[in-house]
C-alpha cells in the first residue's frame, strides 16, 4: 500500500501543481484573484478537443493553437473586464466569477452537457513499484516540472521578470520608476492563463471535458495556493504535493470514504490557516503592498 500512496500522490500532485502555479502567479504578482483561471483551463480543453478530435490536427499543432487562442482571449478579457475594475478587489473577484460562468454557459450552449473524451498524447502505461502509471500522467509530471522551471526563468532571468517582481513588490513605486504597470499586469495575466491553458491541453486527456470541469479543480487549487501561501510558487508546488498525498492516503486508508478526499484536503487547508494564516511559504498579510 505504501508504494501505491507514494506513486499515486506524486502523480496527482503533479496534476494539481500544473493548475496551481498559474493561479498563484497572477495573485502573487498582480493581486488578482482570478476565479476564471480554471475556466480558461476548461476553454483550452474544449479548444484542444475541437482541433484534435473534430478537425484532425496533430497533438502539437492543436495544443499550440489552443494555448495561443486562450491566452489571447485572456488578454482581451483583462483589457475589457478586469482592468477597468482592478483597483477594487471585490469587483475583480465578482467580474472573474461572472467571466467563468459566461464561459461555462457558452460551452453548455455550444456543446451541451455531454462528456467528451480526448485521446491520450502518449498511449500505454508503465509499472513502477508494482503500480501501473499511464504515460500521459508521467507527461503531466514532466510538463509541470518544465512549466515551473520556465516560470522561474522568466521571473528571475529576464527583464520582464524583473518588472513583474518589481510591480509585485510595490506597484506605486514601480509606476513612479517609469514602468508600465498595466502592461506588466497584462503580461502576467497572459503568462498565468497560458499555464492554465497548457494544463487544459495536457491534463484534459486524463479527465473528461464538460462545461463544469472547471469547478472541482478550482476548489482544490484554492486549497493548494492558500495552503502553500498565496502568491508563492514554491508553496504552490509543495501544497499541490501535500494535497495529492492527502487525497491518496484518504482513499487508501478509508476506501468507503473516498468521496471525502476533497473535504479532508480542505480541512488541512483550514488547519494550516489557523496555525499560520499566511500559509506555509507565503508572506504575512499587509494592509498595503
Amino acid at each position, binding site marked *: 500500500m505504501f508504494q501505491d500512496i507514494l506513486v499515486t500522490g506524486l502523480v496527482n500532485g503533479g496534476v494539481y501543481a500544473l493548475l496551481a502555479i498559474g493561479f498563484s502567479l497572477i495573485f502573487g504578482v498582480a493581486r488578482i484573484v482570478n476565479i476564471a483561471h480554471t475556466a480558461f483551463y476548461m476553454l483550452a480543453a474544449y479548444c484542444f478537443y475541437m482541433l484534435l478530435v473534430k478537425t484532425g490536427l496533430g497533438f502539437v499543432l492543436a495544443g499550440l493553437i489552443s494555448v495561443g487562442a486562450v491566452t489571447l482571449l485572456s488578454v482581451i478579457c483583462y483589457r475589457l473586464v478586469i482592468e477597468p475594475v482592478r483597483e477594487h478587489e471585490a469587483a475583480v473577484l465578482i467580474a472573474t466569477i461572472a467571466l467563468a460562468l459566461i464561459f461555462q454557459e457558452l460551452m453548455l450552449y455550444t456543446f451541451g452537457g*455531454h*462528456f467528451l*473524451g*480526448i485521446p491520450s498524447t502518449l498511449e500505454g502505461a508503465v509499472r513502477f513499484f508494482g503500480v501501473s502509471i*499511464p504515460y500521459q500522467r508521467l507527461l503531466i509530471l514532466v510538463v509541470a516540472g518544465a512549466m515551473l522551471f520556465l516560470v522561474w526563468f522568466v521571473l528571475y532571468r529576464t527583464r520582464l521578470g524583473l518588472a513583474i517582481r518589481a510591480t509585485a513588490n510595490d506597484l506605486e513605486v514601480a509606476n513612479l520608476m517609469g514602468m508600465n504597470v498595466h502592461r506588466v499586469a497584462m503580461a502576467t495575466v497572459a503568462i498565468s492563463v497560458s499555464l492554465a491553458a497548457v494544463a487544459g491541453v495536457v491534463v484534459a*486527456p*486524463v479527465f473528461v471535458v464538460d462545461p463544469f470541469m472547471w469547478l472541482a479543480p478550482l476548489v482544490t487549487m484554492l486549497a493548494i495556493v492558500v495552503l502553500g501561501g498565496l502568491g508563492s510558487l514554491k508553496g504552490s508546488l509543495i501544497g499541490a504535493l501535500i494535497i495529492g498525498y492527502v487525497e491518496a492516503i484518504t482513499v487508501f486508508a478509508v476506501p468507503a470514504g*473516498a468521496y471525502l478526499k476533497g473535504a479532508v484536503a480542505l480541512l488541512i487547508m483550514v488547519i494550516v490557516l489557523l496555525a499560520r494564516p499566511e500559509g506555509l511559504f507565503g508572506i504575512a498579510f499587509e494592509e498595503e503592498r
Partner: protein
Amino acid sequence: MLRKIIAAHLFALAALGFALGAQAQTIKIAILGPMSFVQGEHHWNGAEMARDEINKAGGIDVGGKRMRVELVRADTNEIQSVPDATNAVERVITRDKVDFLVGGFRSEAVLAMQEVAMDYKKLFLGVGAAHSKLGLNVEQNYERYKYWFRVAPTKDVDLARTLFAVLGSIGQQIRTDLKTDTPKVAILAEKAVWTEGLVAAAQKNLPALKMEVVGLWQPSAVATDVTAELSAIDRSGAHIVFTMLSGPVGISVGRQMGERNMKAVAWGINVEGQKEEFWQAAAGKAQFVSTLDTYAEVEYTPKTIPFVKAYQARFKKAPTYTAATYDAIMILKDAIEKQGSTNADKIVAHIEKIEHTGTGAIATFDKRHDLVWAVGKTSGIAVQWQDGKKVPFWPPNVKGMQPFKMPAR
C-alpha cells in the same frame, strides 16, 4: 370609422375563438427533462417519435373525436438545480396548461416534481428516476399520489435484483475461466442516496452468491479522477468491479481501468456507459465495461428492434432508457382511447390494470404504481462494450444476445 373598428374587433375575437378551438383539439403533454444533457435529449427524442407516429395515424381517438398530440418541451435543468425542475413543472401546468406530464431523471428532482404534479392532480408518468420513495408515496397516500406511475426504469430495489442476477452469471463464468471458487468483488459506488440500499444489499448478498467482497470504494459522483481508487482495487486482486455510478465518474472509471490495463471486469450500473457517446468520452479505453441497459437490437419485446432501428435512423444514435417516453405516451394513448376521456382519474384506473407491450418493457403496475419486475419483461438487459460497440449479453433467453468477454490475463 366606428363600424370598421367594431368589425376589426369582431374579426379578432372570431380568430381568437378559432385558435382556442383549434388548441382544444390537441392533447398537450409536457416532456420534462434536462434538455442540455443526454438524458433530456433522449426524453425528447422518444416523445417526438411517439407524437409523430400518433399524429400521422390521425391522432388519439377520444370518445370518437380525433385529437392530435402536442408536446411541450420543458427543460428542468434538474441535474444542476432541483428548484429549476419544480419551476418548470409549475410553468407547464399553469402557463402552458398541459394535460399530462412525462419524464424526469434525477430522483431528488423527481421527488420534488412529483409533489407539484400531485398538488395539481396531473397525471405524471415517470421515465428516468429509480428511487423507491416515488412509489412508496403512492402506497402510503394513495389519494394524493395516485397520479404518479413509473414507466422506466424499475425501482432501485428491483434494479438490484437484476444486478445480482447478472453478477451471478458473470461470477459463474469467472469460476469456469479462472478456476477459482470464490470470485473477488470490489464495490465501487458513487456516494449518493440511490446507491445506499444497493451497497448494503451487495455487502449482504455477495457472500451468499459465494463471492468475496474485497472492499468498498465510494468516490464522489462528479469525481474526474479515480486513480487512487483503482490502484487500491488493482492491489486487492478483484476479479469484478461492481459499479454503481450515475455521474461522469463512470467515464473516468471506464477510461482509467483501460489505461491501467486492469484485469478485473466492470459490471453494474454505469449510466454514462449506457450512452452511445461513452466510447468516445472514454477515449476508446472502456473495453469490456458492462452495464445495465434498456435498449439494444434484441427481441426483448416485439417492438424493441423496430423502435431501436427507427430511432437510430432518425437521430443517428441508439436510444438510452429515457427514450422510454415513447412507451409512456403510448400507454397514455391506449388509456385515453379505451376510456374515451382525458380525465386523469379514469386514466389512472385504466393504467393500474393494463399489460402494455412497449419498446423497453412489457409493463404491468403494482400497488405502488411501479413496474412489476420480471426477467425478460421489465428487468432490462445487460450490455458490454466490446471494440467500440455495445454488445447485449443478458438475459440469455432473449434472442440476439452475444457472449460476455473477460480481459485477457
